């Protein structure tokens, strides 16, 4: 059932798709760069885990979804939330801890939730949201729906028991849940081979008898093709899957180690940056003649404007009033 497929012939790319995928990845990249700046200025609290380098995974995977499908993620979730369609202004306002943020400014960077786009949240506890995805899958089946759930998490979550409990459960109960492990080879400062006895994460699918597959997480088209296939199957016959997207975070774990170069060599980081997912798609689009230099510049300008607007919106939004402390604990 399981298979390793690291190289894939990327599917046909047309101009509309190219612009859409590049636009989303560029938006996330710009958003994160700006967030880092704002953090340095003391405007953002929390630790701030940037998604830079991994954009192809969120964008490629969510590009296969219908709006009524679900996505759920960890604390490194700005990218998933934006890719699922959340308003960048409200995401930025949440990072700023402001009243118009997605979580009323009470949640912060790790706790984005957006019901309007079926984004079931960012979660601060590693691995703890994996069973929640299974539950959402159960509810879909129970209600006779045909939506699917995409659940994003890091390689570190595979160390936790909840990964294995959830994997068994979706297999046993046949739930329409796609687990997408973003294997960036480090859990904070711990390299994968120092923490996992089995470093080919997709192989854990074999144990549970579900479909497992590794994909180049730097190639947005490969991610899209792979996830698209398992999403369609899950929609049709409730088959769960485990996808290992091989990727890399270009920045540190959080803003506490902004360069992330203590436990990784600079050479390694530089080498991985050569496979920047945005540059890869741009090159492919230009080569195929579906993107022009002018398209690329226009996209860059658009996302820069959108992110500036998001910052202006966040700045203008008031801090939550002290009375917010007591709301939403029980039904108000």
């Amino acid at each position, binding site marked *: 059932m399981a298979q390793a497929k690291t190289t894939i012939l990327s599917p046909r790319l047309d101009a509309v798709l190219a612009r859409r995928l590049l636009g989303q990845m560029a938006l996330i990249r710009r958003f994160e760069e700006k967030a880092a700046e704002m953090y340095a200025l003391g405007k953002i609290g929390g630790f701030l885990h940037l998604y830079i380098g991994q954009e192809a995974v969120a964008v490629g995977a969510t590009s296969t979804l219908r709006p009524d499908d679900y996505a759920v993620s960890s604390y490194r979730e700005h990218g998933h939330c934006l890719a699922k369609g959340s308003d960048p202004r409200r995401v930025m306002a949440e990072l700023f801890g402001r009243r118009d943020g997605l979580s009323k400014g*009470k949640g*912060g960077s790790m706790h984005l939730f957006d019901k309007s786009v079926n984004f079931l949240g960012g979660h601060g*506890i590693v691995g703890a949201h994996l069973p929640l995805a299974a539950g959402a899958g159960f509810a879909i089946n129970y209600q006779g729906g045909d939506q699917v759930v995409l659940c994003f998490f890091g390689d570190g979550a595979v160390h936790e028991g909840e990964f294995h409990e959830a994997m068994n459960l979706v297999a046993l109960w046949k739930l329409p849940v796609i687990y997408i492990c973003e294997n960036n080879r480090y859990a904070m400062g*711990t390299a994968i081979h120092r923490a996992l006895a089995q470093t080919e994460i997709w192989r854990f699918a074999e144990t549970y008898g579900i479909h497992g597959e590794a994909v180049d997480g730097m190639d947005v088209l490969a991610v899209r093709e792979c996830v698209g296939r398992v999403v369609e199957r899950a929609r049709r016959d409730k088959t769960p899957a485990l996808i290992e997207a091989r990727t890399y975070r270009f920045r540190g774990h959080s803003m506490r180690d902004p360069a992330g170069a203590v436990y990784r060599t600079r050479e390694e980081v530089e080498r991985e940056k050569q496979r920047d997912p945005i540059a890869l798609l741009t090159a492919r689009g230009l080569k195929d003649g579906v993107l022009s230099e002018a398209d690329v510049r226009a996209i860059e300008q658009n996302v820069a404007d959108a992110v500036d607007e998001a910052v202006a919106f966040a700045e203008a939004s008031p801090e939550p009033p*002290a009375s917010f402390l007591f709301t939403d604990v029980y039904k108000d």
Partner: protein
Amino acid sequence: MGKLNMVKALNLALLQEMERDDGVVIIGEDVGVDGGVFRVTEDLHRQFGGTRVIDSPLAEAAIIGTAVGMALYGLKPICEIQFSGFAFQCFHQIENHAARYRARSQGRFHCQMVLRMPYGGGVRALEHHTESEEQFYAHIPGLKMVIPSGPRTARALLASAIRDPDPVIFFESKALYHAAKEEVPDEIETMPIGRARIDREGRDLTLIAYGAMLRVAREAAEVLREEDGVEVEVIDLLTVSPLDRETISASVQKTGRAVVVHEASRNFGPGAEIAASIMEGAFLSLEAPVRRVTAYDVPFVGFAREWVHIPDAARVVSAARDTLAY
């Protein structure tokens, strides 16, 4: 040795206890090569190697469960959980195993182990990275719950915790890690667990605090002296459980008034137990009901409003004034 901040003071205690006893091992996420999220275990991996300073997978239940197994066979593990908010991932191992092995095996096995965890807010972090959950541990028979208030007490109490034959939950305030430096002697220093300290003497009112709230209590005491001419006695609890009821009662017998300050939320928190203990130990001396100044009974709120949630000196002063005017 000179003046150390709390991180360096804790590091010194770990170093000296590891040198003293080769049964002492450290286990946790990123404690080795990386030196720990807050650098408390810095350099120990280099000195003692990977079998004594163990980088574990990201698996809290496995860390504590494994440490219990080590302790049953005579090792003295010191576990680091990166933030106290993650300890619910291993709560069953703490509550069901570490705390109860002595009782369950009728004294044949016991767990000499320490669980170090950074706790508390005031550092512009989010939810799990800011909470104070000492009440959960203080409630469990078989555990000791220790919270130092500065570099020197942190160093001495950690050494004592490592030598204690029973499991000790050791909370380290993130707000205090780099807050202040104190003179910490070179030679090994220990302090009795279960004993509170009079931080400041006074006759009009007793303020009971611990951890990062000691600073708040001190500040409030100063305001009350300057503005109200009131002499406040401040107790630095240091150990939440077992509670030093004698020291608290003796103080309240003298002052007749007490305010408890903690960062944990209020309902069923340490303040309730302390108030009950004062009722039992100093009832006839009480001039006013015991007041509590605590975080509110809500999940920890985002960084923008954390100072509304965490007790500050103004709230303590106001509660003290109410108590004095009662």
